[in-house]
């Protein structure tokens, strides 16, 4: 009996087996059923493609929400940028502002008011026209004081110490006017932050204060109405999100054929980097945007035989740096007078000494770091914007680089000498110069950088003690407890990767002004920070790119002369994508592969990697 059941099971399995795994969907020819809008958007691309096919890209986790206004993390925003369009966006190749749902815009003479002309005939994925009423609705939602989504900050500007919102109006169905309370260099990217959702679907939820719980991952795909090139086909938590083309999308190629070319885009979850690599090699993924530098060589060697292309994207936009704890009590509390340092007073005295910080920077052998943890795929970086950023990179910004002899001389000069011959210098008061460097130990790259830093500093007579810890523990240390010595961290890229997006880093009152966070508004601790604050203000208050570049250069140079942060190298990114696809242009900005998914196309009807 038992054997018969077993045999029946095996038979059933063999009957269904051909259907699984390798079974590829039969392709049906694409027919455009909808008339093109009056104002089509002609998309720039290398070559016109053909319709059909599917692109599967790896993702580290699945989206948490499909609501573009309350979404907060990259796994959601990666999908949201595909599903919803804004009035303006940036061209990832040139980082220039480009019109999307708006066909054009004009500035008022004072530069504070922008008047957008919307694209006539643009439609949501349910066929409903996209009008200025929808745009106005989205602005209402973003600026709602009760909902207070994190993107609200983009539509607010500090004026006279108070956050003042943009004002806006919709004089007719296809005109939308936005006025900033003061000149705002980033007004277009800020407006582009607001992705357009359908008023006719979401207004009731907004009125009933249920907006945040609308368009969640539990929403049935067919009722998710989108404004971008794609709409949701299916969603399986921690598994895959499948997008299909929005049949009403206004984008067309040079021949006037409607985009996107691909039938489907799939974001497939592979939590583990090694598993994702296996999936890519097995042809289950067509593109991978988080390859480890140690694997680059293997990918480069395999690309011919396995029919994929390794795209060299250049320097990553992610930076690595360390800083010393310069925080002080801003007001008297718990037996501490205002102005006393948060770190141990002896150590604070070293950290606050600019020459000490410069000596540390000169002790760091950055080339050794590039050869080591970066496997040769790294470049030196001296600012928040790396050499990968064609628009903002400035090669004239300098900082104290590796020069151990100069570092030793500088330490001697400020009285840090090794008086007891144990290899570690003592400060003038006789304290051995030793400090701990906190980093999150789950980041293997930072762990190996910390070890190299320990060796480098030992060579000039400074004892660095690496202290690996859980990420949240470290964040609590440098944000709330403020009782650490030094920290090793990195910053990711904003979109657009514009210095103006880094207000919290540059401004002395910011939360990511790591070395001395949240200083009282208008009362920075050092004259150098006061100058940076003023420069940043100027940087944002003009739309003149040349002037913005000059102010960016100047604040970066002050930061580096003071050595508030000690810059470390940045990795070079390589992105492997199947050679079956055309118009692939990986960018250092997220989403690195799919940012131009509307024009990526599959070269032949069938065939595998």
């Amino acid at each position: 009996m038992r054997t018969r059941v077993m045999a029946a099971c095996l038979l059933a399995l063999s009957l269904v087996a051909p259907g699984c795994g390798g079974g590829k969907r039969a392709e049906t020819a694409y027919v455009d059923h909808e008339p093109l809008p009056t104002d089509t958007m002609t998309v720039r691309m290398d070559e016109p493609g053909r319709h059909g096919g599917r692109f599967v890209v790896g993702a580290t986790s699945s989206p948490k929400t499909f609501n573009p206004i309350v979404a907060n993390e990259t796994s959601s925003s990666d999908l949201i940028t595909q599903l919803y369009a804004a009035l303006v966006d940036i061209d990832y190749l040139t980082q220039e502002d480009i019109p999307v749902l708006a066909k054009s815009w004009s500035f008022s003479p004072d530069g504070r008011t922008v008047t957008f002309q919307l694209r006539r005939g643009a439609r949501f994925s349910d066929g409903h026209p996209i009008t200025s009423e929808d745009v106005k609705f989205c602005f209402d939602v973003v600026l709602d004081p009760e909902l207070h989504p994190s993107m609200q900050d983009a539509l607010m500007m500090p004026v006279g110490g108070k956050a003042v919102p943009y004002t806006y109006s919709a004089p007719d169905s296809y005109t939308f006017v936005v006025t900033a309370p003061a000149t705002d260099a980033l007004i277009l990217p800020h407006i582009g932050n607001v992705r357009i959702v359908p008023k006719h679907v979401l207004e009731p939820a907004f009125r009933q204060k249920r907006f945040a719980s609308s368009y969640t991952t539990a929403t049935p795909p067919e009722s998710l109405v989108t404004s971008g090139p794609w709409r949701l086909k299916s969603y399986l938590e921690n598994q895959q999100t499948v997008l299909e083309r929005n049949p009403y999308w206004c984008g067309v190629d040079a021949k006037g054929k409607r985009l996107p070319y691909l039938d489907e885009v799939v974001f497939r979850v592979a939590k583990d980097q090694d598993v994702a690599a296996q999936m890519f090699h097995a042809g289950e993924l067509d593109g991978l945007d988080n390859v480890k530098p140690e694997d680059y060589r293997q990918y480069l060697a395999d690309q011919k035989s396995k029919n994929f292309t390794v795209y060299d994207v250049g320097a990553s936009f992610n930076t690595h740096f360390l800083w010393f704890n310069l925080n002080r009590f801003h007001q008297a509390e718990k037996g501490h007078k205002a102005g006393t340092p948060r770190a141990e007073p002896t150590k604070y005295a070293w950290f606050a000494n600019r020459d000490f910080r410069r000596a540390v920077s000169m002790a760091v052998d950055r080339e050794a770091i590039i050869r080591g943890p970066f496997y040769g795929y790294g470049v030196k970086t001296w600012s928040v914007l790396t050499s990968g950023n064609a628009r903002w990179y400035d090669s004239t910004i300098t900082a104290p680089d590796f020069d151990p002899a100069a570092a030793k001389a500088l330490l001697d000069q400020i009285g840090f000498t090794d008086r007891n011959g144990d290899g570690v210098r003592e400060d003038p008061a006789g304290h051995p110069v030793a400090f701990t460097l906190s980093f999150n130990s789950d980041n293997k790259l930072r762990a190996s950088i910390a070890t190299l830093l320990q060796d480098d500093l030992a060579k000039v007579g400074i004892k660095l003690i690496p202290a690996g810890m859980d990420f949240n523990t470290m964040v609590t240390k440098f944000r709330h407890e403020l009782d650490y010595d030094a920290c090793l961290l990195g910053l990711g890229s904003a979109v657009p990767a514009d210095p103006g997006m880094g207000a919290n880093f540059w401004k002395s009152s910011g939360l990511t002004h790591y070395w001395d966070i949240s200083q009282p508004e208008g009362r920075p601790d050092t004259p150098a920070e006061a100058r940076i604050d003023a420069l940043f203000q100027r940087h944002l208050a003009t739309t003149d790119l040349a002037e913005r570049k000059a102010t960016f250069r100047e604040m970066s140079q002050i930061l580096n002369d003071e050595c508030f942060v000690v810059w470390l190298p940045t990795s070079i990114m390589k992105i492997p994508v199947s050679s079956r696809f055309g118009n692939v242009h990986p960018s250092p900005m997220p989403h690195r592969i799919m940012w131009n998914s509307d024009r990526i196309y599959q070269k032949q009807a069938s065939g595998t990697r």
Partner: protein
Amino acid sequence: MRTYLLRRLLQTIPLLIGISALTFLLLQLAPGDFLATMADNPQISPATIEAMRQRFGLDRPWWVQYLLYLKNVFLHLDFGESFSRHQPVFQVLGTGLSNTLLLASAAAVVTWGLAIPLGVLAAVRQYGWADKSLSFAAFLWLSVPEVLSGLLLLWFAARTGWFPIGGMRDLDYDLFTPLQRMGDLIHHLALPALVVGLVPLASRMRQMRANLLDQLRLDYITTARAKGLPEHRVILNHALRNALNPLITLFGFTLGSLVSGSFVAETIFSWPGLGTLTLEAINTQDQYLVMGSVLMASSVLIAGNLVADLMLAAADPRIRHE
């Protein structure tokens, strides 16, 4: 029997409250909160973070937050909302739990489907080559960590192309016939179930072997053999039935532990289960999601134990729950 069941169910309430209090306390002791990572985003202002903290109720002392949580649970059966997903926690956890239970059941089939026949074989052929090689293989597998066996099987899948590399469904699942869908599921389930199911195999097999050997030494077996019963009937009809008794209790226990045991395999095989969700919730400190998933996993464990007790009573007429 009914009073016993009722008593057991009532006992679980203080137990679950205790578990929830402990979980909540541990979450509070962990550094940072859900908004900590967001504060690291240079584009979000401190004022916005503060506004969000208020909206999520994270600005209140932890015990106030916990009492409010209990109040909502008891008065409205409201277990809170996930901060990142803006959905009720059980809506988020539902599919994850069912996927995990699916994997756990498949793993149980692997464990018990192999442990019982192999254990019987080892007992019947005691000290024979089959017994020795089975013990060797079982212990070898027992000493391989789950992560390694998972990655090895994944590598095997990648090299041969016989199995999908992780995931639960083929991309064309929607176009499949019901039969193909079942085949697709089994195809995806095979390797993760093997990884999870083979871990407890060694001990279960040894237990089966020992139990059966104990029974075979008893007088009633000698009697049965003396009556001239064929050996296979002596073993299958008489000895095996009695030898299975202690294993039934174990089965219930493993039901609970299989849920927690599948967390590692879920990550390696990208299986969209409760483990993946829970880990993500813990990493982002999505506190009510963590609470919900801990309560869910505990309930499964408690239910497993209860089922074990009930099954034992059903199998052994000497045991009665009064």
